[in-house]
């Protein structure tokens, strides 16, 4: 793993030896991140496919399940993520302008928003636990059946809604946790002054990842929380 000495002396240490110049390195990194996000679209897409098919088949159960999760918490969480996307975008801008302290503050704020999201998600999951809506042996949707006597709710099919709820929000949360981890690294290196207007690629591509996780939630919110909120007759 030795470096050609010539390359190191003419460029900064962050230019890797196999690249011709910094622009090629940056272009490669951003293309790589976009391709990775494409794989993530397909990854979540598999669950969206399952969701689509089961919602089509079990609409009543999906509607009832959707009503049973807290729309206020969901809306707040959506807002939290939107704020975090703002801080990320402003952070990339700060890096572009060489404003180190501002960058660190914005990255920290992003982490705070991310943790807030995860905290609220935890509260929501706990609510489901208390209401016996976790799929499995202790699942019990009697409360939903009672709440909506005018539509037929099959408790077995109801488990499918909640299975998808936990799978989708769970994997989304996992991606958030990874995102927070990445941003902790970014904050540390930003604090050390590693990112300059000439080299801020990690911030940029970390930001792309974060925005993507936000976009997944932008779709999860209406699909899980807003299936049918209209007043019952």
């Amino acid at each position, binding site marked *: *793993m030795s470096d050609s000495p010539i390359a190191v002396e003419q460029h900064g240490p962050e230019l890797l030896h196999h690249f011709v110049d910094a622009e090629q390195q940056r*272009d490669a990194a951003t*293309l790589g991140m976009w*391709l990775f996000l494409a794989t993530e679209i397909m990854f979540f897409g598999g669950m969206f496919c399952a969701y689509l098919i089961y919602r089509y088949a079990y609409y009543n159960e999906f509607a009832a399940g959707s009503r049973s999760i807290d729309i206020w918490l969901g809306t707040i969480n959506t807002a939290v993520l939107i704020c975090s996307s703002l801080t990320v975008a402003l952070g990339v801008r700060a890096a572009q302008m060489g404003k180190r302290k501002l960058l660190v503050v914005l990255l920290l704020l992003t982490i705070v928003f991310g943790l807030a999201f995860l905290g609220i998600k935890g509260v929501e999951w706990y609510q489901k636990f208390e209401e016996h809506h976790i799929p499995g042996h202790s699942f019990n949707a009697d409360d939903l059946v009672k709440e909506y006597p005018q539509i037929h709710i*099959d408790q077995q099919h109801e488990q499918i809604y909640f*299975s998808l709820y936990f799978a989708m929000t769970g994997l989304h949360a996992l991606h958030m946790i990874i995102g927070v981890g990445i941003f902790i690294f970014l904050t540390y290196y930003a604090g050390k002054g590693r990112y300059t207007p000439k080299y801020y690629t990690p911030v940029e591509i970390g930001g792309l990842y974060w925005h993507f996780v936000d976009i997944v939630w932008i779709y999860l919110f209406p699909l899980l929380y807003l299936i049918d909120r209209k007043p019952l007759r």
Partner: protein
Amino acid sequence: MATVAVTAEREHYLNKEYGIRSWLLTTDHKRIALLYLASITFFFFIGGFFALLIRLELLTPAGDLVQADTYNKLFSMHGQVMIFFFLIPSIPAVLGNFLVPLMIGAKDLAFPRINLLSWYLYMIAGVIYIHCIVTGGVDTGWTFYTPFSTAFSNTRVIEAGIAIFIAGFSSILTGLNFVVTIHRMRAPGMTWSRLPLFIWAHYATSIIQLLGTPVLAVTLLLVVFERAFNLGIFDPTRGGDPLLFQHLFWFYSHPAVYIMILPAMAVESEVVACFTRKRIFGYNFVAMSSIAIAVFGFLVWAHHMFVAGISLYSALIFSILSYLVAVPSAIKVFNWTATMYKGSISFTTPMLYAFGFIGLFTMGGLTGLFLACLGIDVHVHDTYFVIAHFHYIMVGGAVMGYLGGLHFWWPKISGRMYPEGWGRLAALLVFVGFNLTFFPQFILGYMGMPRRYWQYPPEFQVLNVLSTAGSTILAVGYVLPMVYFLWSMRYGKIANDNPWGAAGLEWKTSSPPPTFNFDEAPEVTWEAYNYEEIPAPAEVPVER
């Protein structure tokens, strides 16, 4: 290391550094390729061992070698090991990793550390899978169909699922690396239309890896969640649809077969061009066909589900799409054949494999069309006809492509020639052994012998015995190259830069190449396959 030290030994990627750390922490794409070569060969023999046991059991109609449950594990693990731990990585991770930067004139792949990470992910997955094997294995078939895998199997489904999930990420990262490299790191003058067809095919393969593998990943994860946390996504008692699993599984697993064959086609183009000393006929068509295969390959998955319960209307759609996907493959076969017309053909080992590939891949592909026909599929689905079909493509096609490629680029990789006589003998044994193993299976399937059965009616025995006999010949054909490649690393004739007189940037640097591939950054001013400008080698190097 050289047995005949004529000059002071030149520095290249193999002798630049010694020691296990220099290998395990390398970011040199060429060393990583060799790491993969060692590991996939290991898994090839594990998968082959399971195949051997299967064929031994099937020597007799009675189930007398292993119990039924064990037999289920044997065919399941044979499939999973061969597909996920051998075929999917094989050519891309070994030959692709080694050659892509060389062929485009780059110093390395775009992300060398991610390349190393790919290998480590593959190894972690491999260790987990080995643990799965020794603690009980998996008996769901390689396809993990629900609800058996989620609710009824008593074997190590979660572990196998996690191992394959991780191996999938190795595959995704390799694909990602190739796409970025090919877009961003071509040498000056290396335009898209000057790229070797090997690169086009690997680019197409990488697109499939990027877009298909994540769906497998999430599907296996959902199976793991269902088993571990009792989620009910595929559970029929809760309204889950087993076919949903199959749709999601095959959305990846059909394009996966194109991940396995496109790189072999990549090799085919290079080998045929070199040993007919001509530019590939219809370069643009072959390049575009690679892309077409990658795209169309995603549109046909439910042909694995014709009798599973999908609607007749969707079956019709998928049937016609399955016919269409054969077209670009056929175009390639026609173009390779047309290349040979009035070419100057040498029957070297790689070319023998290339000939074998064309014939066997064509047979496999045509029998795929039989299966795409709904009426026929009703009768031969889940019989040995299907098994013969896919082994013709994956073994007669992909493995022969892999072996042909290994032989063709061996001088570049190791700086040595393999012994040509033994090479040709092994190629012949592989061809004969392969056909004897798998042709009878077409007949068996047509006669009605189901797959995945550990016993069979006595009237099928003769063909099964022939098949097993063939498999022993095939095994010898596979072991021979292992032996003589290893032998050649110490005693093989030393190769010069371009022993075959082949076109391509990789042949313009020394054998083996220096760590950074080229002493001077290349600038390309010629078209691909410029054989009219390259003199044929004085003699085709043959070890006497």
